[in-house]
């Protein structure tokens, strides 16, 4: 009887959540009148919405499962992805990179790179990230279908269609504003769910200190944030060089889904404050993703968990009381939806601004591009629903796509950093540096080098090639660089003359 009641409570929570999220689409529809409203929320987002939306977008259901599995296997070292692998890069993104995107009023990261370097750099970046985001949708839809099927019992097909209708409706009707506000709600649900799991776990162990003392006694290495160099997954040097200095800055400075929220800020200060504010909940994410792995390690009977990725499902299914389990499940769904909506909106922005508007129809009205943005969002939903079942047939697709993306992270970061920080970097330097860095990353991956070191060396190589080619090619004209490069005004002769004229009256 108790179990039946709990099931009804869980189902009630899920239906209330889906209904509430659907309502957002209706509420935000009337605010979307232009492409700026649709893609950038009318540049009206306050810092706290940006911050919470960034983290909502950043944490997906895969992160929950994968990170809990990582913590189960390797311990607190998994938290490096949320700490060293995020916070410094978020600070640099806020105080160095975002002001340049914001000042140039761009819609996308490739758009900035195209302005700074060459149109070819913009096309390469737009196609890579555009294709990646669209493919990712199919995987997200499949994951949502599996989760609803496992927990609620709906068929996978029906679950995918329900997800597509709910997320698609508010994303198409409300654009980035609806996406950002729903992300805020979804992040709130994720934290409530995460804290509920933590409370139950610590209560079972007899308190926080008792739990950590028992964990330290049973698995001392699980409380070491850095692991030896011979660790296959998280060697400490790879964590600092590959994750801390390359992959993380590439993610937080150049990922369209993340950056797009800051481009929709109501002021430059809000854009920067939004990214810094996001770093506070990011610091707490290990409570959501690492603790469940620890609870599975300490409380699951030996031999129960054969694959580390089963750690979180085991906690939800066997460890939590009914009702709380439903809440955590809604948190998963919220995490997944917040990633789907952001991916949809960013993919539509990239394809509309960098491909359609640039190469298919150049001088159409804003109304036309708004319609194209909405049609593309709808088309990506349909593609995602159709593509979703294929991800089951090819379980390596997600891994392959992540590997593919890792080929571009280091070279993209090198191109972006030199573009923002060094006035002498030229269009050819950017293009040759980017492409040669990608080729090196592919070569190193074929040699089975750890992906953290692939990221580091492809970044260094791309940086060096960019510098060498830039010195071998003529500098860019000052009028092209104005407002695009850090500290460039001091070197701009026109600017110097204008200041002198003003001083001399």
């Amino acid at each position, binding site marked *: 009887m108790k179990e039946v009641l709990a099931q009804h409570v869980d189902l009630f929570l899920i239906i209330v959540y889906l209904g509430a999220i659907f309502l957002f689409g209706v509420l935000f529809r009337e605010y979307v009148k232009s492409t700026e409203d649709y893609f950038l929320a009318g540049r009206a987002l306050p810092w706290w919405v940006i911050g919470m939306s960034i983290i909502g977008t950043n944490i997906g259901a895969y992160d929950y499962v994968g990170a809990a599995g990582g913590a189960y296997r390797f311990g607190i070292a998994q938290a490096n992805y949320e700490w060293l692998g995020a916070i410094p890069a978020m600070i640099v993104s806020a*105080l160095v990179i975002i*002001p340049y995107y914001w000042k140039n009023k761009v819609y996308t990261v490739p758009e900035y790179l195209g302005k700074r370097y060459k149109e070819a750099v913009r096309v390469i970046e737009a196609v890579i990230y555009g294709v990646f985001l669209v493919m990712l949708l199919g995987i997200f839809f499949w994951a949502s279908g599996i989760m609803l099927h496992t927990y609620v019992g709906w068929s996978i097909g029906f679950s995918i269609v329900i997800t597509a209708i709910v997320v698609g409706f508010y994303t198409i009707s409300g654009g980035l504003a609806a996406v950002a506000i729903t992300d805020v709600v979804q992040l709130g649900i994720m934290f409530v769910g995460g804290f509920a799991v933590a409370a139950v776990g610590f209560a079972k162990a007899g308190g926080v200190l008792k739990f950590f003392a028992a964990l330290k006694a049973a698995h001392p290495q699980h409380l070491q*944030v*850095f692991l030896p*160099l011979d660790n296959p997954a998280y060697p400490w040097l790879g964590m600092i060089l590959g994750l*801390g200095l390359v992959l993380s800055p590439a993610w937080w400075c150049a990922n369209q889904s993340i950056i797009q929220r800051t481009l929709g800020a109501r002021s430059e*200060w809000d854009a920067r*404050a939004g990214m*810094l504010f996001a770093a506070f909940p990011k610091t707490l994410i290990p409570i959501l993703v690492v603790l469940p792995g620890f609870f599975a390690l300490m409380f699951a009977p030996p031999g129960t968990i054969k694959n580390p990725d089963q750690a979180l499902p085991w906690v939800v299914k066997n460890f939590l009381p009914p009702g709380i389990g439903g809440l955590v499940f809604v948190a998963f769904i919220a995490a997944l939806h917040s990633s789907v909506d952001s991916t949809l909106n960013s993919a539509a922005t990239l394809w509309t601004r960098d491909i359609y508007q640039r190469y298919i129809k150049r001088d159409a009205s804003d109304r036309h591009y708004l319609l194209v943005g909405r049609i593309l969002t709808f088309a990506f939903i349909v593609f995602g629903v159709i593509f979703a079942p294929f991800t089951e047939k090819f379980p390596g697709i997600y891994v392959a796509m992540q590997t593919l993306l890792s080929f571009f992270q280091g070279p993209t970061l090198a191109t972006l950093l030199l573009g923002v920080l060094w006035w002498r970097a030229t269009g050819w330097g950017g293009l040759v540096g980017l492409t040669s860095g990608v080729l090196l990353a592919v070569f190193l991956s074929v040699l089975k080098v750890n992906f953290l070191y692939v990221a580091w060396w492809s970044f260094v190589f791309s940086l060096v090639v960019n510098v060498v080619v830039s010195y071998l090619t003529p500098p860019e004209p000052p009028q092209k660089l104005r407002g695009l490069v850090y500290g460039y005004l001091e070197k701009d002769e026109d600017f110097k003359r204008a200041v002198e004229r003003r001083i001399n009256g």
Partner: protein
Amino acid sequence: MGDFFRGLPLYWAKVIAALLYLLLGLWVITRPRDFIFRGTEDKSRWRDLRLWALVLIGIQIILYFLF
């Protein structure tokens, strides 16, 4: 180079991470006030983004010291 790093005790990883955070903190402190408040009329202390960044760095150093 690999042998050099392999020879280092594990706590050197924490020392390097702490140094990186300290360098970042020093860089944050030197950001000009005009730049930090650009885009807002309100110059209240809580809006000073250098403080936000320093609090974040402080929390990180504590976490890496603890684990």
